[in-house]
Every structure is written in C-alpha cells, then in structure tokens.
C-alpha cells in the first residue's frame, strides 16, 4: 500500500535532518563544515527543543566526530553524523576502523572539493578519496532521493545480515542549499519500516566484550576477507530494503538507474545531481535523432557489477563523467571502475572518460552534447589521451 503523500517545499538539508529525526537517531556528533552545516544545525535545534530524543555532541573536530560516533554506536545507540570535504578527509583514519568494527553508523556527505586550493564548492573528490573505506556508499540525485535514502540507510546499516556503516552522498550546495518539494513520511509509517536498533554487539557491563583487538599476520587477512564478503553480500539486503520502500512510497530505487537507454548506442554515465542536467541533454540529442541514453550509478559500494554490465549491454560508446581526478593516474575513479567492470566481457564498448564540474564549475546540458561529439571523434581517430578534463582553459 502506498503511504499517504504530502509534498512539502523545504531546503534539502532540512529534509535530510527531518529524515534523521523520523529515523529516531539517538546520538549525533558533528563538527561544522560548509556545506553540511544546515543539516546538523537543524538537528541540534530539534534536540534542543525536545523534538528528537537524542544526545548532540558538538565535538572539536571531525576526527573526534566520527570517533565519538564509534563510542555511541558501540554503546548501542542509533548514531548519525554529517560532514564534507576536509572534514571527511580528517576522518579518514577512523572511516576504515568504523567499518572494520562493523558499527552501523549513518553519515551524510555533502560532497565538496578537497583543498587545495581551498574550495567550498561541489565535486566528488572528498568521497572518492574515501572510496576504499569499506562502507556502503550511496549517491543521490535530488532532495527526495536524499530524504528517502537517509531513512533507508539506517535500516540497511543495522540489518543483521549487513551490520555496516553507510554513507549517503548528496552534492554540496547544488542539493544541500536548494529548496525542493519533498514527499515526507509520517512517523508511524517510518516506525513500522524502521524498527528499534538491535545492536549486533555492544559495550554492555552484563556481557562484556573486547572491541578493536589487534590482529597478527596469521589473522589479519581473514579479518579483511570477512569484511570484503560482508560488504559484497550487503547487496541483497540493500535491494530488499529499497524494494520495501518502493512498495511503501511508490518510489523505487535501483543500484544502477537508466534513462532512455532503449536502443541507445551511446551512453553517458555519472553519479549525483549532474544526472538531472544530463537528462535534459539526452532529451535534446534524442530529438536530433542521436541514439543516446543515460546510466547513473546509485550504489557505489558494493559496486553493482552485474547491473552495470546489463545497463551497458548494446552500447558502442560509453562516455563516463567523473567529478574527481585521480592525479597522475589513467582515469577518474568512476571511469576506472567502469572500465575494469567491462574489461572481462568479450564484446565491450569503447569507454572514454571526462572529468567535469570540479570545485563547483557549472556544467550546462550543452556540455554533454559536446562530450559526445568529442568522444565520437576521438574513437574514430584513436583516443589521444587516457582521459580528458572538460572545459579547462588554455
């Protein structure tokens, strides 16, 4: 049954904090960083007014924010934090430990460029520098998706078949600071969807455990394998939970989303809010008779290999847009992943990569038409570069 719908206009950051409120987060530790601040400011006022029964810990750094979250989650509380850019980078050490300890913390990352030079504006270089942290990582495209996934992330993270920290990415400013219409949920529906947290392990004086023991070489590889398997196997429960949400709300989500890919010979790929711009470009090119479609990766970790291969079946040219660089390397992170996913196939498309929209650089629909034309020409003459940076002067 589809739940009651009411559309409310609000800033996406407020919608995300409302989702965290509906999820009844019990502990929040955060440190201010633009453009994540509106989320935690709103949460702290919910706590201050008694509208959310939680502890808000205004820590002295992001490193301590995630560390405090580990303490909260290990003690058995439903735990949330949000950060951006330098904040995520400062957490880096603890990100790996959080997932290795299998603590079901949910974090919003308001994606922003990494310094330097300092830039507060949007790209994906923060989360791409944290690609291998062993968390579930989801990308959202608009405010509604950010709201939906912020609720679902708790259910995914805490599922006893999963038990894994989860990041929901949304583009800084482009999403966090815009007002959109959101279909919100009522508390009873969310309560039915998301039951109380049952910690898999917790710090309990009645049943003491040791968390964070160290491993000698004889056990370290086994610990890593257990983590790898758990993250890979979270795929099934994630889909199941998204399906349940779809039945509840009418909003269905897939690990790899497609737009007008029927009969498409050319596929444009990306993650995040840029997809909405690309959709307009695809419409325009389709009007011109160019057989182009759009593929968006929603589930970045665990990487949905089979879904991606299915979405790209039949394509002859794939144009991958990265919003991050792998400096000195062969490809941006999404390009590298797509290429290695497609490489084992006997029949595979040409795959070219473009880094676009760094540090808040605007990307208009026309850009995608330009990229497609450029890629077609490059394929014809043989690619002149490993990858390209779009729109750079000089």
């Amino acid at each position: 049954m589809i739940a009651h719908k009411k559309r409310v206009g609000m800033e996406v950051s407020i919608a995300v904090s409302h989702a965290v409120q509906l999820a009844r987060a019990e502990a929040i530790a955060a440190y201010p960083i633009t453009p994540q601040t509106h989320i935690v400011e709103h949460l702290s006022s919910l706590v201050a007014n008694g509208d959310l029964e939680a502890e808000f810990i205004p820590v002295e750094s992001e490193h301590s924010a995630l560390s405090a979250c580990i303490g909260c989650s290990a003690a058995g509380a439903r735990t949330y934090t949000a950060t951006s850019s330098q904040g995520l980078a400062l957490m880096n050490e603890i990100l790996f430990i959080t997932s290795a300890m299998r603590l079901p913390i949910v974090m919003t990352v308001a994606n922003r460029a990494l310094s330097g030079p300092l830039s507060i504006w949007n790209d994906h270089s923060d989360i791409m520098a944290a690609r291998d942290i062993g968390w579930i990582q989801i990308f959202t495209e608009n405010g509604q998706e950010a709201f939906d996934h912020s609720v679902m992330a708790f259910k995914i993270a805490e599922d006893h078949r999963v038990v894994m920290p989860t990041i929901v990415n949304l583009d800084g400013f482009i999403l966090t600071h815009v007002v959109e219409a959101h279909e919100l949920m009522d508390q009873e529906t969310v309560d039915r969807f998301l039951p109380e947290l049952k910690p898999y392990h917790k710090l309990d004086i009645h049943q003491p455990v040791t968390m964070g023991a160290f491993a000698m070489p004889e056990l370290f590889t086994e610990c890593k394998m257990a983590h790898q398997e758990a993250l890979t196997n979270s795929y099934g429960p994630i889909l199941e939970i998204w399906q349940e949400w779809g039945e509840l709300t009418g909003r269905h989500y897939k690990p790899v989303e497609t737009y007008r890919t029927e009969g498409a010979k050319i596929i444009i790929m990306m993650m995040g809010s840029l997809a909405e711009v690309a959709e307009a470009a695809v419409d325009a090119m389709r009007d011109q008779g160019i057989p182009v479609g759009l593929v968006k990766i929603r589930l970045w970790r665990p990487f949905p290999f089979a879904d991606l291969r299915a979405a790209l079946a039949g394509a002859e040219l794939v144009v991958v847009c990265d919003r991050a660089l792998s400096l000195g390397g062969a490809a941006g992170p999404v390009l590298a992943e797509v290429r290695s996913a497609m490489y084992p196939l006997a029949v595979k498309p040409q795959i070219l990569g473009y880094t676009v929209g760094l540090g808040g650089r605007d990307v208009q629909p026309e850009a995608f038409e330009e990229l497609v034309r450029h890629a077609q020409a490059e394929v014809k003459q043989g690619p002149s570069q490993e990858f390209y940076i779009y729109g750079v002067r000089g």
Partner: protein
Amino acid sequence: MSKAWDQVTWQEIEIGGVLTEPGSARAYNTGDWRSSRPVWDKTRCIKCGVCWTVCPEAGISEDADGYFDINTYCKGCGICVKECVTGCIKMVVEES
C-alpha cells in the same frame, strides 16, 4: 575460539573482530618467560600480602594457610622480592 588461532577461517571471525570471552588471555601462560622465580621462606613470612599487591601479573596467589606463592603467570621480575616487608623472598634460578 577452541581452534588454534592460526587455523581460524574468515567465516569464523566474529563480526567486527569482537572478542566475546572476557579475560581469555588467562589461556596464555606468561610463566614461560621466567628465568628465575621468587621463593618464600615461610618461617619469616607474616602473610601480609604486599607481594600479591605489587605483582604486575596478578602472578601471586594465596594458599589455604594464608601463605603466598607464585602461580603460572609469574614472569620473574623480582618486584615482590624488593618490596617484601620482612625480606623473606629470594630469587632462585629456574631449572629448565
């Protein structure tokens, strides 16, 4: 974990590497490190328990008569000898 720890498979690793048996280190016999051991002269021991207090290993236990002696964990550091109030403890080279 009853299995030898270098035989444990990845499937047997507890979620998050959590150890669920508090104090399981007791299975490790640190007494093997010892090259000499403290020996008590019971005629001079006043059963005060200072030796038990100052042992970093909790490696000294009390017997039924109230006297103290090392248990399996004594690493042979000799602090008990130095701190004994009556000087009734001596270090003796361990015979292997």
